[in-house]
């Protein structure tokens, strides 16, 4: 089984979000970048397939040179090879086309992406990639088992879950639940040393249209202070008469 894990390089969840250049750009000053949490769940599952079922695991990012430490981290966690498509990931359709070119060339069976990236929250790349490569697609995936060419996957739905049978080639939108929290791997010294010599291929982008473009960003207006209720009666009164939500 050949697996490709799509890694988006995102600000750490605790980052302060600021913008520069008249609010047209995300300010990366002082921001720590990490593997997108949803991708980390996917990568961990992929490494399980490598260890238990002999899968090969490649990781890929569409982005500039600054994302290489994130790819090296994925290699240190256990991926075999990394690919970076050297271009700015400015639009989901454009990114999905870059990934699709690699998927077609590398004939991967399973492509694992995240449900959404926590920066732009597009939630679009995995589905677009599935459609562009004529693969099956399971989003919000919380379990996947592979037996020969049979795949059983479970996805989270509003209010519960749903189990699906499907087949390769398959794109997953991974999320929390796909692996146990305790199984998330922190790279150890040996992994980090090995990662230095694992291949990281840099490829040029293919031509593809950009269908959308961000014009500018805004920050929410500052919030007023909390109103503290001295008693439960007062709270009910506030929720009924002032907030009008009960």
């Amino acid at each position, binding site marked *: 089984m050949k697996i490709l894990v799509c890694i988006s390089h995102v600000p750490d*969840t605790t980052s302060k979000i600021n913008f520069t250049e008249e609010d047209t750009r995300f300010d990366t000053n002082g921001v720590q970048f990490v593997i997108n*949490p949803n991708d980390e769940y996917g990568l961990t599952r992929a490494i399980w397939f490598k260890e238990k079922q002999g899968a090969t695991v490649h990781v890929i990012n569409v982005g500039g040179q600054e994302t290489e430490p994130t790819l090296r981290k994925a290699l240190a966690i256990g991926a075999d090879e990394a690919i970076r498509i050297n271009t700015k990931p400015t639009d989901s359709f454009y990114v999905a086309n870059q990934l699709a070119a690699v998927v077609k060339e590398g004939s991967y069976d399973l492509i694992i992406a995240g449900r959404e990236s926590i920066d732009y929250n597009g939630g679009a790349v995995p589905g677009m990639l599935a459609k562009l490569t004529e693969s099956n697609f399971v989003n919000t995936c919380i379990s996947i088992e592979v037996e020969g060419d049979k795949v059983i996957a479970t996805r989270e739905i*509003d209010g519960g879950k749903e189990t699906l049978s499907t087949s390769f080639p398959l794109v997953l939108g991974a999320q929390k639940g796909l692996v146990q929290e305790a199984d998330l791997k922190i790279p150890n010294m040996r992994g980090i040393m090995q990662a230095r010599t694992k291949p990281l291929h840099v490829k040029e982008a293919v031509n593809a249209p950009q*269908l959308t473009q961000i014009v500018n960003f805004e920050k929410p207006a500052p919030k007023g202070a909390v*109103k503290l209720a001295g008693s439960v009666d007062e709270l009910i009164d506030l929720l009924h008469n002032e907030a009008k939500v*009960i």
Partner: protein
Amino acid sequence: MVIVYTESENGKFKKTAFEAVSYAKGIADKLGTQVTAVAINSNDVSSLGKYGASKVLQVSNEQLNNFNAAAYADVVSQAAKKENAQVVIISSSANEKYMAPLLAVNLEAGYVGNVISLPESTEPFQVKSTVFSNKAFAVTQLNTPVKLIGLSKNAYGLHENETAVTTEAFSPQLSQDDFNTKVISVDKSTDKVTIADADIVVSGGRGLKGPENWGMIEELAEVLGAATACSKPVSDMGWRPHSEHVGQTGKPVASNLYIAIGISGAIQHLAGVNASKVKVVINNDPEAPFFKAADYGIVGDAFEVVPQLTEKLKAFKAQNA
């Protein structure tokens, strides 16, 4: 034409479907055109007229009884092509987020999800959405002839706009490839309000000490007709099911009222619940960060406050019934 997909469950439209139609009507008015709704295996399609749809394409097909992202995306894109849609509106349930990117590729449409308001401008076409897990907004320009918009829950609201509505049966061509992925079982509690559909969500954190103490959370939720939710560590420790975990890495919450009990208000938790209109915090630590993000709060011990609140709310409900 503006096309809107209207999601239903067991034949009944979801509230988000009416919200999507309201929004579609808002856009259609700006563009000087009309709204066509697409409904799959739904009853009572004429109710869509109340929110501004002037035509409903009604699909009845047993193969579509279970949601199937690929097939549903095919249905909506064929409807959009038939109607010459300029704009296609969906809402942001898990199912619609699943089919959105497939639909976008089918229609070669630019797609923006988590949209919170009518377009800032239609020429060029620019819409505002939440990004960075509700920590910011982005205005995005769509450069394609067909635009696909995913509307955030509870952001635009319901707007009545009584319109005469015609219904037309619609039989799209489905490809067998769409059914390569098949549902084999569904595990869903049918007697509980889901976090996605709920107007009120009652959520508990590590401050509740253990799963045995969730009875009071469920009682409070029951009085309010609310869904129950929890913070990440609570689901990680197995006190509550994963499906209740809300926040940046869990489910998003965009309810009218969110009540956080024994939750500190970590940035990753707030990121996922901030879209709720009114936030209430109950915490015994006045320094808990949630107090900075909440609208109302009580500083107190959850084990005293919550049972009291439930009792008083019962009395309040009885009086206001």
